[in-house]
């Protein structure tokens, strides 16, 4: 619909031109925190500083290298993270977050206002009940699998996603997706697998999952990732059936993976606010009486410190769990072996 609106408006548009604005005061840079923590990964926090909006800079010059970064759990545990490189701070002991524990991050750095943020990695109890091959690969080399998951919802409001992937044997863009680790130097990687589900309340985005009036995906709509809240099954065990399409390749066995994630409120809201933010397109500014910034849960600073808990289920055609080596994950895409 916006397309139609802007077709009409574009016909009236005179021109777009640069304009100089007078800004009132000088800008005081803030500490920017980037940290999505999961129970499967060592505590890691990326720090840099914000800059005046009009500056053209090399971002590497603005990594914060000399900060004091601490994480506490409110029960006496304090973990001091140490700088490794490029403003990345990690737990020297290799400690990891514990699901269901509330953590507080504090960052102090010379010439910056100290910042603080709180979040937790939600508890996640999910089981893979069964995998059944419904259809052997057809002429398009697509096989169908019926997967059943049991998701045990915990007290409180929770937000989830299910992401279906399969191993893709060719060079792929190494883009990080929803908490999955980067495949450094990998040629073989993942691609989304389409699935359908009749489970009620599945949506294509966190924003829709928050919208009680939004139409959930229908059983006919294929997608590789769905988002949902526990609004329809609070504190119950939800049985989720998925019909999964997996492409078979000649060079790689049909290895596929389901990633079930439980999102912290902070990460969920950040994701939504990003999708709603006005960004750099005048369409948004025309539609909005004022801009929509991206949310932050970092007091006195910017960015996010947010938890997430994931559980991955790997399966091959026979329902067996596979390893990175079997799937040749991380192999150079030009490596025939």
């Amino acid at each position: 619909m916006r397309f139609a609106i802007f077709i009409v408006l574009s016909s009236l548009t005179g021109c777009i031109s640069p304009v100089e604005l007078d800004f009132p005061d000088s800008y005081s840079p803030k500490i920017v925190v980037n940290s999505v923590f999961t129970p499967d990964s060592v505590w890691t926090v990326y720090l840099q500083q914000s800059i005046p909006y009009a500056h053209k800079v090399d971002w590497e010059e603005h990594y914060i290298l000399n900060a004091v970064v601490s994480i506490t759990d409110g029960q006496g545990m304090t973990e001091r993270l140490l700088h490794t490189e490029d403003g990345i701070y990690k737990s020297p002991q290799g400690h990891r977050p514990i699901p269901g524990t509330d953590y507080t991050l504090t960052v102090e750095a010379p010439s910056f206002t100290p910042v603080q943020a709180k979040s937790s990695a939600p508890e996640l109890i999910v089981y893979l009940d069964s995998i059944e091959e419904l259809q052997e690969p057809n002429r398009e080399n697509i096989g169908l699998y019926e997967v059943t998951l049991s998701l045990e919802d915990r007290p409180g409001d929770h937000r989830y996603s299910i992401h279906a992937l399969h191993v893709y044997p060719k060079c792929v863009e190494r883009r990080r997706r929803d908490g999955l680790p980067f495949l450094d130097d990998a040629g073989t990687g993942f691609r989304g697998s389409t699935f359908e589900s009749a489970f009620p309340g599945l949506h294509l985005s966190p924003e829709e999952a928050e919208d009680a009036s939004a139409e959930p995906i229908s059983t006919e709509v294929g997608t590789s990732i769905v988002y949902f809240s526990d609004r329809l099954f609070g504190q119950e065990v939800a049985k989720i059936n998925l019909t999964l399409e997996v492409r078979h390749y000649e060079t790689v066995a049909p290895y596929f993976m389901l990633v079930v994630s439980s999102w912290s409120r902070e990460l969920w809201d950040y994701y939504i606010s990003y999708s709603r933010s006005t960004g750099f397109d005048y369409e948004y500014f025309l539609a909005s009486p004022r801009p929509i910034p991206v949310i932050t849960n970092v007091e006195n600073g910017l960015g996010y410190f947010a938890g997430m808990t994931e559980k991955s289920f790997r399966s091959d055609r026979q329902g067996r769990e596979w390893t990175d080596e079997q799937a040749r994950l991380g192999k150079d895409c030009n490596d025939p072996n």
Partner: protein
Amino acid sequence: MRQIATPSTLAACLFLVGLFNCVAAQSYRVSGYIEDSESGERIAGVHVYLDQQRAGVVTNQYGFYSLNIPALGSRISVSHVSYESVVIDLELRADTVLVIRLDPRVLLMNEVAVTSEGETLASRIQMSHHTLPIQQIEEIPVLFGESDVLRTLQLLPGLQGGREGFSQIYVRGGGADQNLILLDGQTVYNPTHVLGIFSVFNSSALKGVELIKGGFPARYGGRLSSVVNFTMKDGSRKRFAGEGVLGILTSKFLIEGPLVRDKASFLFSGRRTFLDLFTRWFQPAGKTYGGYFHDLNFKANYKISSRDHVHVSAYLGEDALTYRERAEGVMHISTDLDQIHKWGNRLASIRWNRLIGDKIFANLIAGVTSYRVVREHKEREDLPEGGSEIYARRWHSSIVDISTRLEFEYAASPRHYLRGGVEYVHHWLSPGSTRNRVKSDQQPQLNTQTESGRQLSLNELAVYLEDEIPIGMRVRTNMGLRISSAHGDGKFWGALEPRIGTNIALKKNSSVKLSYALMKQYLHLLTQLGSSLSQEQWIPAMDGIPPQHSTQVAVGFAQSFPRYSIDVSLEAYRKRTHGLTEFKEHSYAHQATALGWPALLEFGEGASYGLEVLIERRQRRLSGWVSYTLAKASRTFSNLNGGLSFPDNYDRRHDISIVLNYRASSRISFGASWVYGSGYPIWAPAGRYLDRVYFVQDYGGNFLDYGLVNSVRAPSVHRLDVSVQFKKQLSWGKRTFVLGVYNVYNRQNPTIVYPYIYDATIQWRQVSLFQLIPAISYQIEF
């Protein structure tokens, strides 16, 4: 007994319809209506003045007047800026009902004014009040040659137009929802077409417009900032007439005439854009997109007797933006996609005017008004096995009012006027409901239909009394009290709303004016950040959402120079508003179903003050006005902007308008307007930063750190618009040819200012939607 008086020299007709017993020993009452001699239309704002007593009245919205005059001969002057004045000598022996007919002014002399129809600006009690004759509105140069009442109102002091080129009005720091916009007594909830570029009011069908931008009298309520009162023409009771206008964007027509000569008449007019018809030629195969708007106005009236008059009026207006796509897939499976975004107002009312005795004018009005926004998305796929599958989603937001109002007016003396009334409105509100439907011919088990969204309602009841009375020789006041109440969602609210206006005469043609008003509004308009335009959601006061209220104090000085036909006014005001709403940061309307509206909203206060200057010249070959506004408007929300006050979105420090009309001859007239406005505030980012982990791919990782709300100003706006009208009287009627240019010197005024990433830096850009635009239109009247 019936008398007929005809002052031949002034070509005015005078009908004495009734003669009644008088009550007073030394004076009699004369009351009745002022009518247009050619069409029979009743004329509002006519000054009926007693020469000896130096006192007079102004006809009300329905053309009614009532005067007490001495028994032993009196001279009354009847004047209106668009009509020839008449002077009538009366010698009454009883109370009398008198219908006075005025001839329209000859064209050359018809130079009209922005205010002061008969009475002078200095003598009027009501502050912040303007009336605009429709004829003058049609002579002011406008965008695309489309006469636009709201756009013309923007040229008056104290009114802001929002984004450059748009038709909304923001009055003295108030929001768009705080204007009570009435068409024949019914509320118009969205007064604009085409996302705000044109107003919904077709000037051809209008008789007049009245604007009160603060401290409005007790008879008006339910809004905080202004009253914009449009009256439709009744339709000629004398002869059939018509009008057609062919313009660049729209064309319109009007027909009117008697249903029963001198007793009943009708008016029917329509307007439509044709952009959608033109754009069809340039669209790719299989895709159709477009948009249009249309208006229909209808009015009929029947004069039952000299005392009873019934009017029926209706308005229907709609905007639509459409997108349709038809695709042929494999195996000849076709899919259809239809998307429609529509919004519009519908109003209807019936009004009964009755003269009770000789002293009381009564008006009973009942009506219904609705406004709705609808977005529809429909996909249809033809299945290879036959049949089809349909997925349809429909979102709509609406407000429907049923209202009734009973009003009385009583002219106790030429200087003492009483008004009273009672008003009831029932609102049905549906602030965003969704219906989803799936229909499959082959898999009936998939067929579903779900609906979400809560219906809300609110009852408003108000009574009011106004007393316009002199205090001594120099002071006249209009003291009023409105008692309003609302009931809904299990809650009850009530309020006393005092309204006081005072005129202190300094000399014959100068006065000081004061006003105070407390106003209450039980509805809120929510505008979702990031939503499509025209996605208004009206919600009522409810448990957790208090009503809005404001207080306004104004002081003014008015000086008239009758010799030069010049009026000067100076007004200063201060307004405080409470109960303003904004969505909480990162809350949005979709959450209302689950969380309820109160959980989504922040409540705050507004403050505005300003100084307004208006210098106008009227009834001359060269007429027009100069206005200047110095204003400041701010808002404070405890959880927005760190609790600090921030400028209102349409806060503009300086605003200047110069409007000129020049009649070169009876056939040619020129119009020009120049406007200047200092820049609107922008909530601009002060800094930027990276996301190195999560959305590192997007925007090059650049995120914006927005600073204090609205702390930066957009560039100022100024432009010159000109037009020339060529009129010619023909044997069958009249034709008018209009040429105009909007933004003559092609100033690039900012409609939108937004950040843009350019060469690794963030650059500010502006969209100038309306640059130099020529206009042409051709109008015929018969």
